[in-house]
């Protein structure tokens, strides 16, 4: 088990170098000079462009630029943006908001999704089952910006029960509506996944054995059936959390949330490779750790899975 974890952690190293270089290269390849358009239609004076290019090592070959950047990065220095602000500080400010939003969204999709999936999976057929099937289909077919705007207009403007936009400090109460918009699609998937998984396992041999043994229905469902049915759902939730941690450009835009998605969008727009690479590096590490965590959870849930 420990060896497995160490091996997985070691795998992070080549992935880290590969992704940072790839992203650095891609941003560097974007056409146009980032400083040419920074002074508006009038254009920037050549001395300004020269100073800025020198400051950000842009006249060096790409590999040297990358290693200069990496040298600072391993010392924990994420560099500064073109406006002279620290990238590290910007990330430290944006990331807690993104994490809060992601966790709330994950809770919403897990709680509502699994509950609805279990109920319909166990009861199967009937009015409620059909209602859940139709409403999840409806949610799946809606793009997130539609859900976002509808929530904002109906609950923010017309009913006045939620904040229309999220203040910079991002209190948890104001994040519930955006998190709901963000979670709606995955919630529908989780419901359907749980439902299908439960329906399938309900007829499995081990469930029949458990019932034949005379176990109480609660124990059959709670311990035997659910534990096995939830594995595919957990895989889905794990990757989804990784994706949510990467920020949500559209939802953040609608509700004016100062998260990581907003930061990276702006950075790409201005060709600010320092910020883009910094943020993406962090996201890659988070994503890989999330996947590792999910893999380890399998072993907890399913005794047949063992890692060496």
């Amino acid at each position, binding site marked *: 088990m420990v060896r497995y974890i160490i091996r997985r952690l070691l795998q992070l190293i080549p992935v880290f170098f590969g992704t940072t270089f790839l992203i650095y290269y891609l941003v560097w390849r974007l056409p*146009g000079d980032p400083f040419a358009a920074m002074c508006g239609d009038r254009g*920037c004076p050549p001395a300004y462009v020269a*100073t800025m290019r020198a400051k950000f090592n842009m006249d060096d070959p790409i590999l040297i630029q990358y290693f200069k950047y990496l040298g600072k990065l391993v010392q924990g220095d994420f560099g500064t943006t073109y406006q002279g602000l620290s990238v590290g500080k910007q990330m430290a400010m944006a990331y807690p908001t993104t994490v809060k939003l992601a966790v709330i969204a994950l809770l919403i999709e897990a709680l509502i999704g699994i509950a609805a999936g279990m109920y319909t999976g166990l009861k199967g057929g009937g009015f409620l089952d059909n209602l859940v099937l139709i409403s999840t289909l409806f949610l799946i077919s809606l793009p997130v910006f539609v859900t976002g705007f509808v929530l904002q207009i109906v609950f923010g403007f017309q009913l006045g029960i939620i904040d229309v936009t999220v203040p910079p400090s991002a209190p948890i109460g104001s994040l519930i509506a955006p998190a709901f918009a963000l979670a709606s699609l995955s919630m529908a998937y989780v419901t359907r996944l749980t439902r299908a998984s439960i329906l399938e396992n309900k007829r499995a041999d081990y469930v029949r054995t458990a019932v034949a043994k005379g176990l109480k229905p609660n124990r059959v469902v709670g311990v035997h059936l659910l534990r096995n049915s939830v594995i595919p759902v957990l895989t889905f939730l794990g990757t989804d959390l990784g994706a949510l941690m990467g920020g949500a450009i559209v939802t953040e835009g609608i509700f004016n949330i100062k998260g990581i998605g907003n930061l990276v969008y702006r950075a790409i727009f201005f060709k600010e490779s320092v910020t883009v690479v910094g943020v993406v590096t962090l996201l890659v590490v988070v994503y890989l750790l999330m996947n590792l965590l999910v893999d380890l959870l399998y072993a907890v849930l399913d005794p047949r899975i063992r890692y060496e």
Partner: protein
Amino acid sequence: MGKIRKVAVVAAALSAALVMAGCGSGTDAGNAESKISIWGGEPQNPLVPGNTTEAYGSKVVRSMFTGLTQYDPATYKSKDAMAEKIDIKEGSKVFDITIKKGWKFHDGTEVKAKNFVDAWNYTAFGPNGQGGASFLQAVDGYDATNAKDSTVKELKGLKVVSDYEFTVTMAKPFAIFPQFLGYVTFSPLPDSFFKDPKAFEAKPIGNGPFKFVSRVPNANIELTRYDEYQGADKPHFKDLDVKVYSSQEAAYTDLVAGNLDYMDTIPSTGLNGDKYKTDLPDRNGEINSPIIQTLQFPTYDERYKSPDLRKAISKAINRPQITEKIFNNARVPLYGWVGPSISGYTDNQCGDNCKYDPAAAKQLLEKSGFKGKIEISTNGDGGHGPWIEAVCNDIKNNLGLDCAFVPVPTFSEVLAKEKAKQMTALFRQGWIADYPSIENFLRQLYETGAGNNYSGYSNPAFDAKLKEADQKPNETEANKAYQEAEKMIANDMPSIPLWFQKTQSGWSPRLSNVRTALWAELDLSTVTVTG
């Protein structure tokens, strides 16, 4: 997402009728201790006046600094602010500037002539890499100081005479130089800036009506009233909160919900069907901005050499129809090369060459002998497709030429191609006044070799006329000569004027006495607030 305005500075004119639009109760003094929040964007450079040329940073810097002159919000005229008097000597070559006594920076030190001279020297010095340096290019010694690896730290043309007087000597006579002085680049800087520029960037110190309180990057910038401010434009409220939004739509939603007090632009969600007028009843305004759009010809390309062809295309475009059908009258046809309400603007400088006349256009085309396809190019991410298609339809129907829109993905890419003179198609060029003068629209775009002369236009007579205008003893006479130069463009048509823009603004019910000032911004000196 919030489309960042790629503008130098938005100088926005007011039509006199709209100056006081939305003015509530004229005598209401409001609550002098309250706070106003306005829409803003993330400044693209540190908040140092000489390095701030784009709209978002300028908005903040302008409220923290007061220069020698200011532009009157209603008339656009340049008027003295910190300047006591500006004497013009030696036929517009030397400007002797005396400043008012008793003005203080926010840190309590007095503003002296030296603070202006040091600030301008710092801005012009090449190795400092300041974005606003080119505004000083007419000053004597600029080329030596601004070189990339210059060692000349001081502009030859700047001399401190006494604590309250300094002189500016130009390389060549330049009559309209005083027009420049209201621009943020010409602000003074306190002595503390030169000791530690980094500390200044973290907490800027100005001499304007508002002082810096705090800044959260990408979220907001807070300013508060500077009570010892000596200028005439003292605000009637206390705190100013410049909020940064991820998108214009989110800001607009906040405005309608009453969480934001003022927004100087309305996103398309509010403009569609004039929705903003019902969302914000009696709380909206519209002004003519001197933001113009033109179609430029790559005159360095043999195919577009004939002025007859260029006139033919100009006469084939039905401007009123396009502004009405495509822009829902948010654009107004332009028949000259200067934005409205700008000092030196006169109507219809283009004359017959911009008049819609398909028959005459067809004749001119035949005279030019042009055959082939017309292509129009610009950045594809700016929503320019619909009007270019409309222009193309006019060209197809009226001239019988094939015409197509060729988009380039981003603004910086198309800008690079235009600068390198690699365009093979007609292209869009927008222009916004840096300072409200006709000279800004002509020299920057059409003088031989000028920084923004992307069409490659070169006419010795035009260049000579500009020089003649520079040497006139005063602005009125200079403007007359500039207008004669503008007429010359009409003869050659290196560029086709299309239209100028209107900008809309909206505000919350808390505000009264709202008027939209120069640069399409809220006039902070008149607005009052309740609650």
